[in-house]
């Protein structure tokens, strides 16, 4: 069975909070709830990295979350897209240079989509996820192409 064909129609999300104030996490919930209804794109919030396609990270990276963030990233199968949600995930935001904070996550894992805002509004989250789906599709196609060339 070719799983990749179905992947782009139903991207599953893995959400990890690596040191946020909860604000952006609540906005993700609000975006999944009926008013904004992110789930209409086939998206499911899922706790298992092995089944995820989109890695949704919130919060400034703290020292103790660092190893876990990288571990989770490694466990997600290719192709994967990383979305940094909220100002403090992109750059450190208000927490920048506090003693327990490593600033943005992009110094540890590659980031595909940056969503700014403190807190990022549900509209922006939807925009970002749509971008992420496009990137996921492009990455999947690239992988398919390589496969075709060698078979």
């Amino acid at each position, binding site marked *: 069975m070719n799983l990749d064909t179905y992947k782009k129609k139903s991207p599953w999300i893995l959400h990890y909070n690596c040191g946020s104030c909860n604000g952006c996490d609540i906005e993700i919930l609000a975006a999944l*709830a009926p008013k904004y209804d992110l789930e209409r794109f086939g998206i499911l919030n899922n706790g298992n990295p092995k089944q995820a396609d989109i890695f949704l990270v919130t919060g400034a990276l703290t020292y103790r*979350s660092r190893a*876990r963030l990288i571990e989770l990233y490694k466990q997600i199968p290719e192709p994967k897209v990383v979305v940094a949600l909220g100002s403090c995930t992109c750059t450190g935001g208000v927490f920048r240079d506090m003693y327990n904070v490593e600033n943005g996550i992009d110094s540890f894992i590659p980031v595909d989509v940056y969503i700014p805002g403190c*807190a990022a509004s549900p509209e922006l989250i939807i925009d970002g996820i749509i971008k992420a789906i496009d990137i996921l599709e492009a990455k999947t196609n690239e992988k398919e192409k390589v496969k075709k060339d060698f078979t």
Partner: protein
Amino acid sequence: MPKKSINIPIGSQHISLLEPVRFKFTTENEKIVGIDWDVGFVHRGIEKACTQKFEYKQVGYVVARVCGLCAITHSLAYTYAIEQLLGLELNKKIQYLRVLMLELDRIHSHMLCLSHTVENAGFEAMFMKIMNDREAIMQLQEAISGNRIQFDYISVGGVNRDIDKAIEKQILKEVQILDHKIDDLIEAFETNWSLSLKFKGIGVLSKEDAYIYNAMGPLARATGARIDTRLESNVMPHKEVGYETILFEGGDIYARNMVRLYEIKNSIQMVQNIIQGLPEGEIQLKVKGKPKGEALIRLEAPRGEIFYYVRADGGNMLRRVRIKTPTYSQVPTFIKIFKGANYADAPAILASFDPCMSCTAK
């Protein structure tokens, strides 16, 4: 044969956890006999930054980022502490607008907690319904302050935005609609059979233990203990706008839900009273001088008492900011309730505490 116990870890990343926290449950058969937890994953070092990176006028906006759910309570508690040091007398209008935002915040926070509790009882549709009703409050908050989560509404000596007639009308209309929806919810929580199966007699805390283990917020009021900072402190004019203490007996998840539901109703009442009797006045007072001395402030956040200690010595930078949040103070209570409960009930019990790790770890 000696009894064997099994360790079950949850976290730090888990689907039912919004925030990183790690539990280690020790169980014998189905019963939880021991629990160990680690909350430090989101520690950022805010207290230190408040005294070294930011000036006192900025700190109000920084401490709001301790927690996105009770952002308003954090910035309020800090601002009242600074105002106490500066000797500012606030007018009625500023005080009323602040209570208005605080109570709106309480409504949406309680609704979020309720939606989590029903989700853990297996009611996905009801979770979605409560989240949808909650959007009305989020919209009101956006109309008043300009933002949905981090309001940045409170400033030293006042508030940053005034409300006009159109917003007042919108608030009255929306809370009226919400009031009826809460009535329906109360009926559902009281009569739905599976909800009572999952909630009645589960996670019980007795009234004596509530005092011994220092429970606060809805957790304490669900046991019948009369613990509420709004009763004791006169920092905010809650009593003028129609505050009532909501008490229930039983101390189980059901009673906690009921306390939250009736507190939402009480908050709606207060919001209506404030809008109907909003006095005229300035929304920003002149701030003169620098803070000097020590101040202690206690306010009632949605989860219980929030405590701020501020020390300043007349400069732009503060000497010390100490934050004590409700979840942090209640960890002993949580452990007491967990011991002896069934492991299968653990997620529902946890959701009924409404814990906030960003607050705890700062």
